[in-house]
């Protein structure tokens, strides 16, 4: 053995002995000083001796120093010299060993104690002095000696797990620096420092490996701290990689070296954090082409299996695929697969709306990135998938799904046939549709993102046009003001205009005065003005002359049901519906019988069938409402159409002509008067029979009879599921309106059977209707009857509801099921409270 090395060993043994036994400050200090020489930059001891010390004896010395730590020992030297020297061993020595010893010591020290806090403070200083960067840098250097994989593994887990471990040891006394939200950004900063050092080494011609850093990154991301660390890392890398190929290569290497199981977490984090596709491209390089796992994550997992990501993230992900020619085939592949999924009818039926929206957005972004020739190549496939998708989407009973189909189809067809006549659907313009259409326009988005000059420049460009209109507005103001002040010159306060809403176009006075005239005008009149006038006055006439209406009620209902819009009349649908409702309310038994049989009649359009359902519900609502309220709402003049009139009348029962002073006086009297019974004086509500009671059956049961018997023109269980959904909702409403009627119990029973037969229906809208039907049964049927007559049905319904609440793809369905379950719970509570006393 080399005598010099054995001399080192001897010195160390002696020093440990001195430290553990001596109480003499001078002696200790000199011993430590001797040891310090092996660490310091002074060239006193030879290099091999230093190495021998750092690799073999350093840990032992540190452990010994830790074990000596106590208030008394440190105070041996009152000027703090000893403490300083003690700390310097940890901070100046090889960082990996110092870190491991520190962590080990902290974890093994129990409870709150002086030593623990001292160590924690030391670790804090260790972190703040950038020693973690030094530690990682050490691992990146070309390893001269064989390193133990186990050692690196331990180091890795301690570095990443530091917040958890410190939290465990320190409990309440944890320092803020060790909290995850502080530690991981710091770690990110340290990673940047390491990468800077690595780049320096590489420029100096030294070989380096970033695999340790990659593993740190991977582990942190897996632990779910990707936002904290990448939030610091990505912006800095964005700037650093901008002009330097070397930096880009280091980044690519960094991502490539991430262990397989961490690839997903790291990539998701990067895609989320990268502001623009170009940045993502600089950070990742052609990783998706090289690495199978990365390809899977980027082209399948993020697009098809998840749908919680934001639109900007989608844009940068797909933009990344589009930026490089090597990756473009992948983009085309992705588009094809997306469209295939989009056009899959089973997916349309079973996927949640959010996912469909996500996929549609992805398609639009893809289309915006692809050029004309590329689209021409895959035109046929696109067209086929699109057609299938549009068809099953337009069949859907949910308006948002239909709208998605329309928007995507419009965009695709305009891209495939730019010169052909554009496909144009009619849909309501809402926030979602505008957002989607904005995604489909490639121009400005690309131009803006290509300007990588910096966000500051872009913001300046956008700010200037904003300012100019403001200026013009400012300059306009003076020119406007004189005019305004002119008209305000002398006050017009005395000339307050009256309400002029009644000022409508005057119709020639051909309106019929009698129901039979109306009927004749509607059926045979060639005079369109008379026809319109008849429809306008019909509702009022029906309410005014119930006797005359009853004589012709069914005939009138038939005419109205078959009425077609002959002229371009405003509010035709509402007028017709209101008239039908009025007829039904006036003669409920006959008309309801007629309408319910016609619902399953042969020659009706879906529109008419749905009208029947709407009318039944509205009429039932009118019938079940107390008469006094009903009259009030009918009283408004039929022609005026101002709904505010009855509202006003009801809110001010006195009348509008009551002078202000009277109100003031009454207020004063009220405030000065003391009353023994509190509460506002309210009008007595007059009781009356529920008119729906006697006729509910006519509204309800016929609708349930034939739903499972398909006609040639009408197949509720087949294609016409939209009507089935409406039927379910209608039955639910009728059930709800039948509260407090004697027929509620058999109705509830029949309705539960209906629900049970259809409970696994694929259409979301139908399921929603069924769920609300269950709720209304629970609300309308009296509790004791519910438990007495329908216990089995309730049990079955309960398990079904629980299943839906947990597993249904549609959010509304889940919510409705939850509500129904809550109602069941309440029912049980009520029962318990009845039985307990």
């Amino acid at each position, binding site marked *: 053995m080399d005598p010099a090395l054995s001399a080192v060993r001897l010195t160390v043994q002696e020093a440990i002995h001195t430290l553990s036994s001596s109480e003499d400050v001078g002696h200790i200090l000199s011993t430590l000083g001797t040891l310090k020489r092996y660490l310091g930059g002074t060239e006193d001891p030879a290099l091999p001796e230093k190495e021998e010390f750092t690799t073999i004896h350093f840990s032992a010395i540190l452990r010994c120093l830790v074990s000596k730590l106590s208030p008394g020992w440190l105070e041996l030297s009152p000027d703090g010299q000893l403490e300083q020297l003690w700390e310097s061993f940890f901070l100046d020595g090889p960082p990996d060993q110092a870190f491991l010893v520190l962590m080990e010591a902290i974890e093994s020290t129990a409870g709150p104690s002086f030593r623990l806090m001292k160590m924690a403070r030391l670790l804090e200083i260790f972190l703040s002095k950038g020693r973690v960067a030094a530690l990682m840098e050490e691992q990146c250097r070309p390893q001269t000696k064989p390193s133990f994989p186990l050692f690196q593994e331990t180091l890795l887990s301690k570095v990443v797990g530091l917040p958890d471990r410190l939290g465990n040891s320190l409990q309440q006394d944890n320092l803020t620096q060790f909290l995850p939200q502080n530690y991981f950004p710091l770690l990110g900063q340290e990673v940047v420092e390491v990468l800077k050092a690595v780049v320096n080494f590489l420029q100096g011609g030294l070989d380096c490996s970033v695999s340790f850093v990659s593993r740190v990154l991977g582990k942190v991301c897996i632990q779910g701290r990707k936002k904290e660390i990448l939030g610091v890392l990505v912006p800095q890398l964005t700037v650093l990689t901008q002009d330097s190929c070397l930096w880009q290569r280091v980044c690519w290497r960094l991502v490539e070296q991430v262990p397989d199981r961490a690839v997903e977490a790291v990539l998701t984090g990067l895609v989320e954090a990268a502001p623009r596709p170009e940045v993502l491209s600089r950070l990742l390089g052609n990783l998706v082409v090289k690495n199978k796992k990365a390809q899977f994550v980027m082209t399948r997992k993020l697009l098809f299996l998840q749908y919680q990501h934001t639109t900007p993230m989608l844009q940068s992900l797909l933009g990344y695929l589009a930026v490089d020619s090597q990756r473009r085939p992948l983009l085309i592949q992705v588009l094809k697969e997306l469209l295939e999924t989009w056009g899959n009818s089973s997916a349309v039926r079973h996927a949640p709306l959010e996912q469909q929206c996500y996929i549609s957005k992805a398609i639009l972004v893809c289309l915006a990135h692809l050029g004309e020739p590329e689209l021409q190549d895959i035109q046929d496939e696109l067209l086929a998938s699109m057609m299938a998708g549009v068809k099953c989407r337009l069949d859907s009973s949910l308006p948002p799904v239909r709208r998605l189909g329309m928007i995507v189809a419009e965009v695709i067809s305009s891209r495939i046939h730019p010169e052909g006549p554009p496909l144009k659907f009619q849909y309501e313009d809402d926030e979602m549709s505008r957002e989607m259409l904005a995604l489909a326009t490639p121009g400005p988005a690309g131009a803006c993102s290509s300007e990588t000059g910096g966000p500051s420049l872009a913001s300046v460009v956008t700010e200037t046009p904003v300012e100019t209109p403001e200026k013009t507005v400012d300059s306009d103001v003076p020119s406007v003001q004189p005019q305004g002040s002119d008209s305000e010159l002398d006050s017009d306060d005395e000339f*307050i205009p*009256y*309400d*002029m809403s*009644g000022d409508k176009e005057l119709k020639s006075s051909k309106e019929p005065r009698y129901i039979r005239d109306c009927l004749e005008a509607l059926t045979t009149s060639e005079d369109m003005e008379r026809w319109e006038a008849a429809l306008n006055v019909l509702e009022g006439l029906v309410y005014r002359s119930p006797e005359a209406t009853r004589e012709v009620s069914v005939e009138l209902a038939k005419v109205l049901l078959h009425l077609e819009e002959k002229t371009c009349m405003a509010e035709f649908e509402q007028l017709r519906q209101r008239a039908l409702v009025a007829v039904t309310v006036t003669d409920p038994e006959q008309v309801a019988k007629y309408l319910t049989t016609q619902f399953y009649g042969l020659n009706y359009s879906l529109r008419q069938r749905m009208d029947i359902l709407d009318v039944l519900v509205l009429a039932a609502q009118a019938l079940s409402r107390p008469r006094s309220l009903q009259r009030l709402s009918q009283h408004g003049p039929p022609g005026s159409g101002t709904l505010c009139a009855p509202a*006003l009348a009801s809110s001010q029962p006195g009348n509008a002509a009551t002078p202000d002073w009277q109100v003031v006086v009454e207020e004063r009297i009220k405030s000065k008067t003391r009353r023994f019974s509190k509460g506002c004086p309210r009008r007595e509500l007059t009781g009356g029979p529920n008119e729906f009671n006697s006729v509910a059956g006519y509204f309800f049961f016929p609708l349930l009879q034939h739903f499972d018997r398909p006609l040639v023109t009408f197949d509720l269980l087949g294609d016409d599921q939209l009507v089935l959904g409406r039927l379910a909702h209608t039955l639910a409403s009728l059930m709800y309106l039948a509260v407090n009627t004697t027929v509620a119990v058999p109705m509830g029973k029949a309705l539960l059977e209906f629900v049970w037969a259809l409970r696994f229906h694929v259409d979301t809208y139908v399921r929603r209707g069924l769920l609300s039907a269950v709720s209304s049964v629970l609300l309308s049927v009296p509790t004791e009857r519910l438990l007495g007559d329908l216990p089995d049905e309730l049990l079955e319904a309960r398990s079904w509801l629980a299943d839906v609440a947990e597993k249904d793809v549609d959010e509304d369905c889940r919510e409705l099921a939850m509500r129904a379950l809550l109602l069941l719970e309440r029912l049980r509570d009520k029962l318990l409270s009845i039985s307990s006393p």
Partner: protein
Amino acid sequence: MAAPFPPPPGPRFVLRGTQSPVNTLHFCPASQALGNPLLFSGSQSGLVHIWSLQTRRTVAALNGHKGQGVTWLKTLPQGHQLLSQGRDLRLCLWDLAEGRNTIMDTVQLDSVGFCKSSVLARGQLCWMLAVPGKGSDEVQILEMPSKTSVCTLKPEADAKPGMPMCLGLWQTNSSPRPLLLAGYEDGSVTLWDILERKVCSRIACHEEPVMGLDFDSQKAKGVSGSAGKVLAVWSLDGQQSLQVYKTHELTNPGIAEVTIRPDHKILATAGWDHRIRVFHWRTMKPLAVLAFHSASVYCVAFATDGLLAAGSKDQRISIWSLYPCS
């Protein structure tokens, strides 16, 4: 949900009993009524009713037009004299003093049209009368009570404005020159200088025949309504030339008469759409739409105290009290 504006008011009271559509209305000036305000109404059956606004009953009915409709009524400034124009081609001058109701004088007219005449007082016992003339597009100016024809205003041969539909004589305070505003069948309004017998200015402000006009000599602005949908406000500048100042689009076509309240604050229109419309005169801001009548409103008149009367084809006269005179 409450409307920001109050609902329009109802009429203060309604006068019934003419048993015939009311063609024209005129308030007796306060100076002559002496505490018993009167309203004159001319009906299509040829009767002139005198209403007391206190008792709300007819005081008398004057029958002087042989069952032919009365189209225009006006009291003369010298008091207790009423002019009535009828479709029997006569203009009658009634003496109403001391409870008499006799015809003092008549003027034979030559026009069978619906044009209302106009009067301008030029002295204590002397007044000027503008009536539609013999030729279909002429206006005749008479000096009264001598009935001497001063002149005949005939448009230039190539103008072809059609028949005169409404007339308005006036003169400015500064100069004694009488001027005539005439609305014609082609929708134009013409300003005549009577002494020089020439057209000062002419504007085509309507597409349809002008049915009524009124002029505010203080502001040198006037308003005209036509069978069409537009209400036009025009102004007169120092050079005696008319300019369209503003137009207002109505909901329904057809204005039978336009009247500015004597205090020049508001104006009212009689609409064929059964409604009376009230506007702020300076700004032409719509103030109210009064829907009471069930047939076309033929005439609107203001009393000096601000009371508004409207006569309609439904044989009723509604009296309104809106925006009291300050």
